[in-house]
């Protein structure tokens, strides 16, 4: 993953909850099926309208509610590469990073319309609205966490750590 990413902005409001992101009725089934119903109670066309590479721009307290990580996973399955929000619910934030989905806190973004192109630099902590050139400060993701996200999340990261430990032990 490159340090910066650029994509189409997809906008949602405040307090988008995990029941909207991962509806309970589909929690038993495969993630691909669940992802088709992601946010459907908010916008019935959401899963059909997002395109791989989109960046979700959200209001405050994004991902509030359950610890179900399918809420973050469904967004990844739909091709969303990053969620930028004014603030996140704590468990969703951890889940997103643990699953390799960038979650970036940007308290003050505004003036960006649906499908406008934006560029995100998670390391420096900056969101740029390409049409206006306006730049919004984000909270940079700490280096060790970004490393985990870029390796695909906590499982591949742990896999590497355990393999290194085993190699050490074998020597």
């Amino acid at each position, binding site marked *: 993953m490159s340090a910066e990413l650029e994509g189409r902005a997809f906008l949602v409001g405040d307090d988008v909850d995990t029941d909207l992101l991962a509806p309970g009725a589909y929690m038993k089934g495969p993630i691909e099926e669940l992802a088709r119903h992601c946010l459907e109670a908010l916008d019935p066309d959401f899963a059909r309208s997002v395109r791989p590479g989109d960046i979700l721009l959200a209001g405050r307290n994004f991902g509030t509610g359950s610890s179900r990580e399918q809420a973050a996973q469904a967004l990844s399955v739909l091709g969303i590469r990053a969620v930028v929000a004014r*603030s996140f619910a704590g*468990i969703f934030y*951890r*889940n997103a990073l*643990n699953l390799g989905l960038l979650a970036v806190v940007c308290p003050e973004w505004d003036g960006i319309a649906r499908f406008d192109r934006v560029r995100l630099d998670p390391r420096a902590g900056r969101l740029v609205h390409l049409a206006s050139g306006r730049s919004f400060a984000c909270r940079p993701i700490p280096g060790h966490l970004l490393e985990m996200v870029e390796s695909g999340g906590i499982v591949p990261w742990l*896999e590497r750590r355990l393999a290194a430990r085993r190699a050490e032990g074998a020597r």
Partner: protein
Amino acid sequence: MAETLAQKIVARAAGRSSVEPGELVTCRVDLAMLHDSGGPRRVAPILERLGVGLWDPSRVVLVSDHYVPAVDPESARILDLTRRWGRAHGVARHYDMLGICHVVLAEHGHVRPGMFVVGGDSHTPTAGAFAAFAMGVGASEMAAVLATGEIWLEVPETLRILLDGRPGPGVVAKDVLLALCRMIGLGGAGYRAIEYGGEGLAGFAMEERMTLANMAAELGGITGLVPPDRRTLAWLERAGVSLGEAELTRWRSDPDAPVAATLRLELDRLAPQVAAPHGPANAAPVDEVEPVPIDQAYIGACTGAKLVDLRMAASVLRGRKVAAGTRLLVAPASARVWREAAADGTLATLTEAGAIMLPSGCGACAGYGAGVLAEGEVCIASTARNFKGRMGAPSSRVYLASPLTVAASAVAGRIADPRPLLAERREPEPIGEEAARVG
């Protein structure tokens, strides 16, 4: 350096003499709790991929509560997989269809002051009623905990919530939480540790304190802590855990410990609260809420179906009937709650009033089990969340309230204030653990 209760527990779990808010630390986990939904079916493939087993099966508690009892082959498969996984990994403590995880942990004395607990469920902070630092995580992070016994953490600041005075008739812990949700907003605690205090706290029974800690999730706290007192020790004693008085002084914040903010709530000025669809922060005093007709009243979930909650409902329903055209569903939070409510007559009171009893489990609260709503239906529930579509069809509407207000609404067939019904009783009924406990 003066420290908060949260700092003291995190420092102990991190093997440090002290920690400061904002520091990144790695904590050793004292107890990992996982359930059938986010548990084995999600963590087993990850552990296989990592090629590791459980770091310590004696520190793991498994609870089947989300898909119980099975309603279709898929939920049956999930429960079967959960049982097999527990057996294969030597998890001796698998509570299979015995109740909702957070209530089961408390009933069996698994959560105690000073412990560092990680649970695969957002309402894991319920254990904070026993002064355990308890945080919810997703399945991948749980798998990492099961593999290593460790979790990283940014030491949180503390938001102190002081409860002053005594609540009037008809006002209980659930009303306190809904009022707090309105005051600071959903997620307003910003992943800080919430710590309850104030002279009003002592009056809350342990199960009521569990409600306070439970809904730290809705307030956005990483955890919700209640400092221990004699009631805490008495509850644990009954659960087979004997702790000395020294634990009471050890696990509390230093008086001058710096906190991010302090919030005060005057309990005697609080009215019963009702949160309108579709969020717990849409709360208002019941007398300011439109008396909307309701199709369903639901007493259930970790938040609202403990023994104390069922007794509250019974105190309103005794000698009364559920209104025609309204259904009252009750899903006791655990097998033990069933037994105790049967023994003390609470169940008979509920069913004589017309309540329909459902199995113990997460049930309709999260739209998983029996009791979900049709398009356009209106429900009032003692649960913690009323997000759009959570309890059933996307156009259904859920109001949140205390078990007292839910029961009063079931009698009226519309949203109703429990206070007039309670005032008709000559003697208020004891509902906490002060009431004779059986079983």
